[in-house]
């Protein structure tokens, strides 16, 4: 285990050397800053996407139902004319 112990010691030394000067001050500054509202931001993004999808579906649906009504009226007119012709004969 001796070489492993030396390796652990150098691991700790190496890791400690990665901490740059001024680290405590940076941490304290970051701790004082308001935490980023990650959850709120994600929730707002999801809600906006869902609202956009619903709006797109509603617009598409209103367009389709308008066309349906026009087509229905056209067919009713044709059916009425066909009936009139049948009765005339």
């Amino acid at each position, binding site marked *: *285990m001796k*070489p*492993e112990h*030396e*390796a*652990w010691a*150098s*691991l*700790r030394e*190496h*890791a*400690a050397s*990665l*901490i*740059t000067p001024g*680290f*405590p*001050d*940076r*941490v*304290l500054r*970051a*701790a004082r800053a308001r*935490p980023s509202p990650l959850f709120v931001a994600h929730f707002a993004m999801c809600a906006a996407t869902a609202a956009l999808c619903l709006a797109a579906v509603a617009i598409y649906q209103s367009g389709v139902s308008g066309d349906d009504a026009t087509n229905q009226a056209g067919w009713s007119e044709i059916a009425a004319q066909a009936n009139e012709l049948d009765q005339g004969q």
Partner: protein
Amino acid sequence: MRELILAYQRRVAGFAYAITGRSDSVEDLAQMVFVKMARALDRLKAPEQFESWLFRLARNTCIDHLRRQKLRRIFTPFAPEHENVPEPAGAVDSEELDALRHALAQLRPKDRALLSLVQEGRSHAEIAETFHTSVAAVKARLHRAREQLRQHYHSDET
């Protein structure tokens, strides 16, 4: 607060490095740990358990970081050459450290955390408290982790 950070920064950095094995994430992880500490210190009910609490915070932060990294790679697959980017030149300057790093990388993150806490000189009871588990479970896992580390460490050396 500043004194607390100064007192523990080296140990937390060593702990984070043992778990992640990456030089480039050590300072960021240590900063995340201390920011969490600074924000939650008021809520610590038993000040005598500060060290166990701090290292639990560090362990969870590092394991979350590794999980996020793994998850990110599912959605953004890296090219094979980007998957295991070597440490920057000069970052690891001893063969023993390199061998230990490679051996640790073969272990599960939780076992790396366990071994690192033992190297910190923490007792089995303290580790059990940190991990919210029993002393017997710590001993069993430690035995297994040590065996695995020894195998990988010596296979790397040969």
